[in-house]
Every structure is written in C-alpha cells, then in structure tokens.
C-alpha cells in the first residue's frame, strides 16, 4: 500500500497540525484519519491531498510519503510499529514518539523531540534535528529505550537526554547538554559537543570532535584506541555515583 499525503498551503501556515494518526498501522486498518489544527479537529483531507494506491495485508507493506509543507505537522509516526514513512521536506515536533518498529526517513530537517521515548525501529534525518532529539518526556526518567536514530546534520540542546537504550549517531555537532542523565545505550557524536554526559549514570558516549566545558566530575581513565583514533576515556558522573563511559577526542574545562 502506498499512501501519499500532500499538505496544501494554508492561509495561516503557523497553526500547528497534530497528526498522531499518521502511521502505517492506521492506514492498514483503514481508519478515518483525523487531525487537530489548533483547537479544531478535521479530517486529514481538509488539509492535505490523500492518495492511497494498492492494498496492504501486513504493516510491512505500508509506505507513507509526506509532501508539501509538513514543517508544522507534529506527532507523525507516533507509536509507529512497522512500515515506512518518508518525509520529503521538514517535519514538525515529536516525529516518531514512542515508535517501536518500522522506519522514518526525513529528507529535510526535524523539529524538537525527534524519536522521543522511542523503543525500536529506525529514524534517519538528512538535515538537522531540533532540541531533545532521542530524549524523554518531562519528569520522565527514561528517554529513548531502543532502536536507532541517525542525524546527518547537527542537533540542538539536550540531545539524548535520559537515554537508556538504543543507538544514536549524530554526524554534526550537538548543542548543550547532550546525553544529560544518560542511563544506557550508545551515542556517537562525530562533531563537537558541549557539557556532554552531565550527570550520566551508565551508557557509552563517543565525541569525535571537541567536548567543550567538560563536566569536572568525571574520572580520567587514560587514552584508548577506538575506530583507529585515540580517545580520552572518562568514567562518571562521579557527582551522581555514575559508572558511564565517555570517550572524547579533545576536551576543554571551563576553569
């Protein structure tokens, strides 16, 4: 089953659209797709052209393509458990919330909370991702738990906050506090990062670039070889009785 959703231009393009029903599962079950535009609830067709071709008998046969201006469309792929979603442009917040299977590919950039509390499946974002990429919810103790997120560009602040499982690969830089409160999983940052792994208790993080303003309460463990490169190995966060592993190519302290 191929689903093509083309968002039309709107008179007020700033009103967010909440589209938690846009998942392969909902189309497979032939549900009526309702979305929220501000405080009104409308059928998806009121805002987008919808073309469905072919049949699907299992979730793996459902492929959704999103076109048009989807930069304000939130919660696409929430609880997604199989199939694929491809977004041609940018996507709004909370794409892939609680996702447990399938694959989301974003050709543009993603807003905040990409892959929030994700449990499985894959997300690939070709542009940048906003704050809280692969993180958790407010007050939550566990962020992303499984699956994988790859961002070709850079990410905002608080990437991988509370992460407790899964794998994240960021090709660019991160903002402040990447991997804060990290509890598990593996995060690889190919660019630079700032105050990385603050308060971590477990898990593994690699910074191939420079770790600026290192948290001063990590224990130095020596130099190790990883991926053919030399990294400083730290363990911590000691302030939090943590036993996580942080490997950085270069680092600075705010002294």
């Amino acid at each position: 089953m191929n689903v093509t959703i083309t968002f039309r231009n709107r008179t007020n393009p700033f009103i967010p659209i909440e589209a938690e029903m846009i998942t392969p599962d909902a189309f497979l079950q032939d549900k009526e797709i309702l979305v929220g535009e501000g405080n009104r609830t409308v059928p998806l067709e009121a805002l987008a052209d919808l073309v469905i071709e072919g049949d699907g008998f299992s979730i793996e046969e459902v492929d959704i393509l999103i076109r048009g201006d989807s930069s304000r469309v939130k919660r696409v792929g929430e609880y997604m458990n199989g199939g694929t979603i491809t977004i041609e442009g940018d996507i709004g917040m909370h794409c892939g919330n609680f996702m447990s299977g399938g694959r989301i590919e974003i050709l543009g950039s993603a807003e905040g909370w990409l892959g929030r509390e994700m449990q499985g499946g894959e997300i690939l974002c070709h542009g940048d991702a906003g704050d809280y990429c692969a993180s958790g919810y407010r007050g939550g103790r566990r962020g992303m738990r499984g699956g994988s997120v790859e961002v070709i560009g850079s990410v905002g602040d608080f990437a991988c906050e509370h992460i407790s499982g899964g794998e994240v690969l960021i090709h660019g830089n991160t903002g402040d506090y990447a991997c804060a409160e990290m509890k598990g999983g593996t995060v690889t940052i190919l660019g630079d990062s700032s105050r990385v792994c603050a308060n971590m208790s477990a898990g593994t993080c690699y910074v191939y670039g420079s770790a600026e303003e290192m948290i001063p309460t990590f224990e130095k463990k020596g130099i190790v070889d990883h991926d053919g490169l030399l990294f400083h190995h730290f363990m911590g966060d000691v302030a939090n009785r943590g036993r996580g592993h942080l490997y950085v190519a270069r680092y600075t302290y705010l002294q």
Partner: protein
Amino acid sequence: MAEILLKNAYVIDPISGINGELMDIAISGSRIVEEASQKAEVIDCQGYLTLPGGIDSHTHTSGTKVNFGRYMSPEDMRAGRTARRGPMHITSGYSVPTTYGNSYRYSALGYTTLIEGAMAPLEARHTHEEFKFTPLQDSFANTLFDGNWGMLRALEEGDITRAAAIIAWTLTAVKGFAIKLTNPGGTEAWGFGKNISCINEKIPTFDLTPADIIKGAIRANEMLHLPHSVHLHCNNLGTPGNYTCTIGTFDLVPDINDKRQSLYATHVQFHSYGGSGWGDFCSKSEPVARKVDFSPQIVIDMGQVMFGRTTTMTADGPMEFNLYRLHHDKWSNHDVELETGSGIIPVNYRKKNLVNSIMWAIGLELALLVKNPWQCLLTTDNPNGAPFVKYPEIIALLMSKQYRDAEFATIHPDTEKRVPLPALDRELNWHEIAVMTRAGQARALGIIDLGKGYLMPGAEADIAIYPIKTDEIDPSAEYEKVIAGFSRTEYTIKRGRVVSRRGDAIIDGENTTYWVKPKVPAVYDMQHDPAFIELFERYYTVRMSNYPVQEEYLHRNYCIETETDL
C-alpha cells in the same frame, strides 16, 4: 423539593441492621424519608446491591502535599488524562489525579465522603480550596498536630487542658475535623534531619516522648468530645521489626469512649513488619491483628499495597527520606514551621520484589485476621499503597481465596516463607465488605449522628447502587464480576441527587465541608492568651490574624459544635 423513589433496592445497611433485603428507599431533598409522593422520580434498582455511599476514612486527595505530588509528576499526570465530556471537566493523573479526577473516579466507585488524611494547619486554606473542586464528595480534614509547638509545650508542662484548648483553637481556626498525629515527635526531630525510633525515646526540643504525645492527645480529644478519635500514623512506618512499636503504641490506649474507639490507627500494613532488616523482613500481621482483637478501643485501616506505580506522600518527612535513599528516585520534602513535615516520592511496587510482595500480603492478612470488620477498614492510604481505583480489586481479593491464590502464584516465590496469607481461608461476605467500606467508617469517624453511613429515614441520601446481584454471583469463584461490579456504580446518589451514572459524572455537584468547633470557655480561648500570641509573633512567619481559614473558603459547610469538659 426533588424526590426520588428507589424501587427494588437490595439493601445492605449494617448500621441499621439490614443484611440483604429487597426494599424501596424514598428520598426527599437531601435526606432519606419514610415515603415519597406521587411526583417522585422512580429509579428501578432491579435488585441491585444498594449500599450507603462509600466513605474513605483515610485518603490524600487535597492540599499542599497532594498538589505537590501532581506538580512534580508530569509523567503521572499524562498517565491518566480524560477529555472534557458533558458536565465533566478534563482530568489528568493516575496515582495523584487532579481534583476533578479524584472526584469523578471516586464517584464512579460509589464514594460520597472523603477524609483528607493530613492537613497542615498553616496550609489549611489550600486544602479547603481543593475541597471546593472535589464537588461530588463531602470533605473532612484530619488536622496535623504531631509537631504542634503550642500543643507540645502544653503537654510538656503537663497541662492537658491547655493542650486541648490549643487543639480547639486550631481546629476551629483551620476548619479541621479531627486530630491527626503523624510519627509524633519524629516530624519535629526531622526539623534537624533526625527521626525517632521508639515511642519511649525523648524527642528533641520538648521534654516528651511519642508515648506522652499520643496519650496526651487522646485525653485532650475526649475532653473536647470530638466526633472522631485521635487518628494516628504510628512511629517507625515502613521499618522492619516495627510491629513491636505498633503493639506498644496500642498498649497505651485507654478505652474511654463508649460510642467509638479511642484510637484510630491508620495504614497498619506499613506498621506490621517483622525482621531485623530487609534480609529477614517478614509479616507480623498475626500479633498485630490479635492485639486489635483484644482491644475494642482500637480501630485500624489496612493501608493495602497493590502492585504497580504510585506516589507515596505523607507528613512523615523522615520516612519519605529513607524511602528516597532506598529507591534513589525523585524526592520532595516540605517541613511546616512549628507544626509538621511532609515528603513525597514515586514508587513502583513490583511483584518480583520480595519486600513488596510481603507488603501486599500483610494488608490482606490484617483484614482477614482481625475478627471484627468494624475494627479493620478498607484503605490503601490512597495513593501510598495504591491509587483508590484499586479498591474493587482489593474487595475481590478479600472475598475470594481462589483469587488470592491465583495472585499469590505470580508474586515473589519466597513470600510464602515469610507470610501467613496462604493459610488463611476466610472469605469476607457482602455485609463485611459494606462494613469495611462505609458503615465502619461512619462509626469510627463519629458521623452517624450527622446522617452518614446508613440508609434509614433521617439519613443523608448518599447511596451507591452497584450492578451486582448477590444471589447470582459466587464471589469466591467469580471474582472478575465482583471487580467489575464495584468498579462502576449504576447510580451514585449524593445528597439526594444522582451525581454519577455508569461511571460518568452527570452533574457539577456541590459538596459540604464538615468541621468542628469545640465550645471553649473564655479563659481557655487561645485567641487572647498572651503566651500563645507570643509564639505566633516570634516564631511563625504568618500573622496570627491571617492564620485562620476565612469564611470565604467554606462555601457549603457544616459546623459540628461540641460541648467540652474544659
């Protein structure tokens, strides 16, 4: 006045001595009457189980601490969200629902009266504000005195009359209902980060022991002729081996009131632990229950633990800190100057955890071992042991050995060696459940005279009609039906109006706050007592004139005036 005639109600009303009779109940205005006129709206109860409205004699639904439980837990808030529907407002929260959430969900379970378990006097206004938004249940506030400097000073001086006068002034000022002591002496010690480990240990700041405080408060309570007895959360909550402290505390209690108990001990499950540490932790429900059996002057409530996530919140600051060190999760603490403390932490009671499994068993054991159901009331100390929405499951567990065995098979395997539960065959009947969820509460709280807890003419028309036909269900085998039946009333009637129908609130409602006002002779009026005034001026941060809860907060209310021996 609006009239309702309930036809074919299968009534169990323990206070009136009715145990399963098919009858009609006439309601006029807010009360049950002898008969209704032709104009009455007729509701056919089809033989469904009809009980007085449920009364929760110990729950935490309103006030500073409860609201902080919500405030600090967005993850719990999102776990229980419902949309606006009809007259129902949105609700949020699972273990600590918003005020409307509490009210609608309690109403769906047939509850019409709630006793907030712990109100700090200094923050009483907050509790009363939340009462206003809990519209489908009448409200009562147990008022914290465990660390009240005025009262402790009087007790230290051996002046029980003065202690009683201070209690009277405070209850009247804050529109409270009863004296609550939480870890007496312990909350004062916690002011400097310490705790008390024995009822005979001297507390800091005052030359007193917890035993002195408990005994003094019981005497003062009876001098004031308060409807309820002293409501006690014993020392040493949650510590292995604490059952000796609990029994020692019960030994202090004289039998000095012929209408009700002289001490209400709350959430006794948390106080019936054996062992010298977590390694040999075990149930001591048997000696505690035996003690209760021999002590008619004592009523307890279960404080049942059920598995799953919840939030613990008590005035027992030091205990919550110990829990925090155990779980290393979020921890909030809020000490209240000259009065008490409080703490909050989220917990997840897990079947895989041996200690949690034993706790679960102990609560049930207490209810099954205490012979007289009037002496052991059903609570979870909501939300400490579990959110109140688990009550139907607890009822089913008490009514079915088969259900208990099925559950037992899923908990930590070592539990069997540590608890007597598997050997208990008792299955409670419908009447006993009615006692443990409403009639017993009404008697223990001393509110039968106010028309609470029974269904005879003159009573307040607070009624719960459950879709249960007792002659068609075998509770020991069909426990699923018991759970379903108690989860959602057909009708909940509050003060003569149907407020909830098959789980949905159908009107906005307006509740009544009950508070006490002991009549104190002028010489004992603390309002003009120089030493008492000085305490305020020097050590409180709120002016004495701004301390009392003003009339504006009372909306609909009922003042219980008592004659005193002062």
